[in-house]
Structure formats: C-alpha cells, structure tokens
C-alpha cells in the first residue's frame, strides 16, 4: 500500500504555489506536491495526456478559480463528469469571495470552498488545516490504479 499522498495544486501564480509548498513543508506534509499553472495543464495532468502520461493520480486537488485557458470551474466540471476523476476531492482555493463563485463551485460538486487568506500567518494555518483534515482525519477514496 502506498504511503505517500499525491497533491495537485492548480494555480496560475508560481509564487502562490511556492508559498503553499513552504506552508506544507512547515506543517510536515510528507507527500508529493504536483502543480499546474492553468486549467488545460491541470486536465492534462489528471487525464495523463502529453507530458503527463505517467503522472500520478492525485488524492486531492487544490484548485484556484481564476486560471488562464480553462478556468477552475471548467476544470471542476470536467473532473466531476469523468468517472475516473469524480471521486477525487476538490478543494476550491481562491481569493474570490463572490457569492456566485462559492455557490457555483458547490453546485458543480466542489468538496469545499476555502478563501485564500491574504495574510501569511493565516495562510500557513489554513494550509495546516487542509493538510490535517484531508490527509489526517479523512479516509480518502481507494486509489484504484
């Protein structure tokens, strides 16, 4: 049985991905951190297309909404429509606090919606919560590879 978790972070801002890596390192996350900078790359990764033919299947996707090429909601829709991907929990992680974004995300099957905190301390503690909950408390679906 595999012991390392696979996390996919989808965010168009490399600085944000780096910050998430920092935060996860601080809270002793032991799994792999994969990243994609736009919606199309995220789907290529998930569907193992092109350069991602041997990509691992993520246990959790941290998905930003405002993305180039295909936005977060479009990635979410594609995932939930795909029988192989629809079990993967998706955490929407966005700066948007618009009610319509939140509502739409849940409607399309997001597992939770988290507002990206603006402040470093809050950001780190939020990442810690995500790590503890999803990789600690939660029993994730079997990988089925």
């Amino acid at each position, binding site marked *: 049985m595999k012991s390392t978790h696979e996390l996919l972070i989808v965010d168009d*801002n490399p*600085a*944000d991905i780096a*910050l998430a890596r*920092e935060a996860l390192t601080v809270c002793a996350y032991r799994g792999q951190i994969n990243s994609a900078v736009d919606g199309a790359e995220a789907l290529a990764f998930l569907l193992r297309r092109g350069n991602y033919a041997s990509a691992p299947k993520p246990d959790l996707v941290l998905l930003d909404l405002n993305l180039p090429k295909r936005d977060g909601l479009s990635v979410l829709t594609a995932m939930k429509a795909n029988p192989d991907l629809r079990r993967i929990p998706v955490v929407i992680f966005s*700066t948007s606090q618009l009610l319509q974004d939140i509502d739409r995300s849940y409607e399309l099957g997001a597992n939770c919606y988290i507002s*990206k905190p*603006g*402040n*470093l*301390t809050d*950001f780190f503690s939020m990442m810690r919560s995500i790590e503890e909950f999803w990789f600690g408390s939660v029993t994730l679906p079997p990988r089925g590879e």
Partner: protein
Amino acid sequence: MTSTGSHVAKASADEQTTPRTSLRTLLVEDNALDAALVVRALNKDGFEVAGDVVQDEKAFRRSLRASPPEIVLADYNLPTWKGMEALKVLRAEGLDIPLILVSGALGDVTAVECIRQGATDYVLKDGLARLPEVVRRALREKHERSLRLRAEQDLAAKAEELARSNADLEQFAYVASHDLQEPLRMVAAYTQLLAERYRGKLDENADKFIGYASEGAQRMQVLIQDLLAFSRVGRKEGTLVSIDCNAVMDGVRQTLSSSIQESGAVIHYANLPSVWADRTQVAQVFQNLMGNAIKFRGKEPPVISVQAQKEGQQWLFSVADNGIGIAPEYAENIFVVFHRLHARTEYPGNGIGLAICKKIVERYGGKIWVESLGCGGSTFKFTMPLRSSDASSGTREETGQ
C-alpha cells in the same frame, strides 16, 4: 402679385431717427396695402423690416426655406389659405418662430382659441400701433425660451457626463482594488515570510527594512479592502425591505460588544422607526457611527444616544456622543474617503467609515452631516426617506396615499 411673393421695401431715410433693429419678417397677407401698412408700422418704431410677403402655403414654405424669418405676421383669412395653417407648417418643420396674427375684426373666442393653439399674439389691423411692442415681446420671449432650452440641455448633458464619470470611477475603483489584491497578497506574504525566516540572520538594518516593507504591504491590503467595500456600496443591487432600526441597533451592539465593554460605553436608543432600505447598508451606517463614537471618546466613558424624528417627508436620525468632538472647519472633510484628522498612532483607522456612511445615506436620497461643539462631543445627523406607509399615517392622513 406672383406666388413667390413681393419684397418689402426698405424704410425711407426720414424714418431713421432712432437706432434701427433689422428684422426679417415673413408676411402672410393677400392685400398689398395692408402689407405695406404693417411694414410701415414696424419701420416707424425702430425696425428695419426685410422679408417676403406670401399668400399661400407653397410660397410660405419656399420663403421659409430660402430665408428663415425671425417672425411671421399672418392675416387670419386669406383667399386660398388661413393664417393659422402657417403655424402648423412651422410646427411640422420644427421651427420655433413666433407667429402673430394681424387681422381684421377677430372675435374674442377665435382670438383666444388661436393663442391656445400657439399663436404668440394677435393685433387688429386698425390697431397696428401696438404691433412693434407685440413683436418686441415675442422676440424677447423667444430669446429667453432658447436660452432656457440651452441651459436645460447643458444641464442634462452635464448630469449625464457626471453620472457616466461617476460610474467609470466606481468601476475603476472596483477593478483596481480587486486586481491589486493578488500581487499585493504576494508582497505581503513573502515579506512576512522573509521577516519570520531571516530575523536575526541578516543585519539589524535588514530586519528593520523588511519590517517596514511588510507593515506597508499589510496596511495597503487593508486600504484596498476598504476601497473595495466603498466601491461596492454603489454597485450592490440591494433588496429594499422594511427594516426596524431598533433591531439594527441591537445587532450593532452585539457586533461592537467587546469595544463597548472595554470602554464602558452606555448606549441609549428606543422607539426608532423602520426604514425602507438594504439591511446590511443600514447596519453599516449605524455601526460606523457607533464605532466612531466609541473610538473617539474623551476621558469619560462614552454615552451615546440614538434618536429619530419625523421631519417633512423624511426621518431625521441623530447619533450624539460625549467624545472629543470635531473642530467645525473639518466638519465636511471627515466624509471624504481616506480623510483622517488624527495620526494612526493616536486613533487607528483608514478614514473610510464616514465616507461609506455618506455614500449609503445619499444612495437613499438622504443627507449626512455633523454638528459638534468642538470639544464637547459630536452629533451626527442623517436623513432617510419615510416609507410610503409612514408618510400617509403621519401628518397627512387625508391623502391616503
């Protein structure tokens, strides 16, 4: 006389004793002698008349196009046409040219009817001495009318321009503050990360500099949040409901409970009315005013009293405190966005609260202002329109509206 009409002769030299005003006329008249008398009456009184004399619609239209007159003088009855028909032509052409009926005996009823239909005035042919004055008045009125019209058009254009530029500005503030948040979040996060990771590992100056950068970025984040909140006031399509201001104040007291406890504030309010507005926005007005009353307190614990009374078609609310007050010269500035009277170290804040209050109150057609005794506390007053049900149940029950 041909259908193109004859041309009115210039005034003779002996009549030019007073300053002459040139006047382009269009005479609708079949009788050449009468036309000459009309011209003579005007020339005698300081006009220098030039223009066509016509007697049917075709010639009238042609002359109108060739040299538009300043005034039309029309006989009531013509062999093949009627003077009042000329008025219809002017109307149809969209021309604002005064038309004066110059006619033989015209019954009072007919005369009144003609004026009702839009003739400027009427002069009897055996009373032509009156004509110059009537013409002068008609020209003066037309001039005033065009001035007024231009002023109205200017005003409407300015209002439209202002509304557009306000909307642009609001859109700009919204987009700017929204899009600025992302990069700023990075600056704030990474300077903070630098501060935490490298404190004491570089030199003393480095720690200080990173600290300044980090604080600056965080303060700007708050400013941008405030600006966003401010620009949202105008964007929000709030649902208007009837809101009990007593309940709103209960909520505000809850929200501010920690600062109320800390300062020992005493808050009085009772029998506040209900208003027709967006709940969050009304709560925001009360909360900002209460928050200020507590923040800018004097040495004594704050005593705050919220009252309302009906004044005409609106409610006049007042929020009175016993705080440090506001010097009269700042009474208007305090409502300007980001305007502050105190150093941040004295009283924290970004100067957004009252600007938001003003924007909300004005959105509902009200006004907000402050009355202050300088050092003996401040009273903020604002108005909100009555709900239509309050307006009818009050002083004017008989209207039943």
